[in-house]
């Protein structure tokens, strides 16, 4: 299995541990990733918030590059994934079509619209991959209670992105169960963390994050698992004082890499503000093995 890989800007900076763990887990599962040559920023919230044309043209440049490879695209960042899918959906009319034509001129080739853009949860959440994950898990997260947090961008708008029920997703739950963890029930799975308001309005992000962290704690979670760099960053960096104790926030691929005992998993935890080591220690104590 081969995919074109679109890491996006976050995975090269604030979310490097998501990049490292995604590559490691995919490699272990026999999925080959080829990073898109000269990929550019998808524009994220500021682009579509400011200008419809930019909101399509910036992500679409990467679809043109992907078409050259003939491979489908794997995009782990939920914001990138959402932007790329939006560009595909918008390519046929209005300003999206204008953006497409403009890019055809700039890049000197036609847009075919024939690549598929996937998120890792979509790829790993299928029955076959889940079985492959189960086979690879050598250090099950036994006894670890996790809250799976999907956020906004993986499920909304459903007509463009949702690969599962937008208000009740389960792919990450199934993956965490395959890794041996206990998934708690809570009602904040698809609530918003405040996303890109983190810099401009941290006051609002703190408030939203507090609600999410308290709900996770009330549900008995010892860790929160995410699949989005904005969610992870906001929950990890803006939760101080929200709950009676800090909750570590792991990328789903970090948790998988740890459960698969992949060498790349060691040291990733040091990149988090809330140290995941104590939560994993309970799992670890039965085995006396390394830390994340």
């Amino acid at each position, binding site marked *: 299995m081969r995919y074109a890989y679109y890491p996006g*800007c*976050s995975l*090269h*900076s*604030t*979310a*490097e541990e998501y990049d490292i763990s995604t590559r490691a887990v995919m490699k272990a599962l026999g999925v080959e990733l080829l990073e898109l040559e*000269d*990929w*550019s*920023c998808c*524009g*994220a*919230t*500021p*682009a*579509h*918030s*400011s*200008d*419809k*044309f*930019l*909101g399509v*043209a*910036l992500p679409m*440049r990467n679809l043109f590059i992907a078409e050259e490879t003939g491979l489908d695209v794997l995009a782990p960042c939920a914001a990138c994934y959402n932007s790329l899918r939006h560009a595909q959906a918008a390519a046929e009319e*209005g300003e999206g079509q*204008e953006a497409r034509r*403009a*890019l055809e001129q*700039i*890049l000197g080739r036609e847009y075919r619209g024939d690549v598929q853009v996937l998120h890792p949860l979509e790829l790993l959440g299928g029955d076959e991959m889940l079985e492959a994950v189960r086979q690879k898990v050598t250090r099950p997260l036994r006894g670890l209670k996790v809250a799976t947090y999907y956020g*906004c961008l993986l*499920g*909304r*708008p*459903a007509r463009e992105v949702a690969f599962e029920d*937008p*208000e009740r997703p389960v792919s990450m739950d199934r993956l965490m169960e395959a890794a041996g963890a206990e998934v708690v029930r809570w009602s904040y799975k698809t*609530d*918003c963390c*405040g*996303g*890109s*308001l983190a*810099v*401009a*309005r*941290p006051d*609002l992000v703190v*408030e*939203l994050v507090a609600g999410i962290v308290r709900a996770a704690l009330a549900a008995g979670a010892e860790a929160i698992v995410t699949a989005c760099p904005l969610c992870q*960053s906001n929950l990890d*960096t803006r939760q101080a004082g929200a709950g009676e104790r800090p909750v570590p926030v792991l990328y789903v691929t970090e948790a998988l890499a740890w459960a698969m005992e992949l060498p790349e998993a060691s040291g990733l935890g*040091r*990149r*988090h*503000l809330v140290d995941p080591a104590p939560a994993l220690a309970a799992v670890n104590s039965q085995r006396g093995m390394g830390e994340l």
Partner: protein
Amino acid sequence: MSTAVTLDFYRRVAGESSEPIARCYQCQKCSGGCPVSFAMDLRPHEVIRLVQLGRDEEVLKSQAIWICIGCKTCQARCPNDIDASRVMDGLRALARERGYRPGDERVAAFHEAFLRTVQGLGRAYELGTVALFKARTRDLFGDLTLGLEMFRRGKLKIRPSRIRRRAEIGRIFRLAKGKRP
């Protein structure tokens, strides 16, 4: 003052956002689900109603259109399939076009700073974005401790990453700008 409802503004916003704004019958599910409506001066259903009524100034000056994060909870729950967050996107563009001072200047400054780094480098650059944002908002010390913590953990890169074919990005931005009156 004329009491006649002017349709110009409504038509412009409907066109800009491609959303079927006329369908809204004020069920308020958008505002009920909105995670940031508590911080808005106009709640999402009120924004939509004012657009229907052609009350452009109240909407374009509002802080609500800048606070909307685009989480699309409103879109998911609207019985009339209106994506209020896309309406907000269109309203921000209109507010800028008509020269209104952004209702939340910090959010506008962040968007601008982010896009400037992308325009120059082809990729987002956190430290550059934050530096531009702080210069614009004169907020020099906000989040300084957090920034240092993130830096210590290798989450903020000092050197920006840039793409080779930056000229293509430059052309995209010039075209986008050229389309605005």
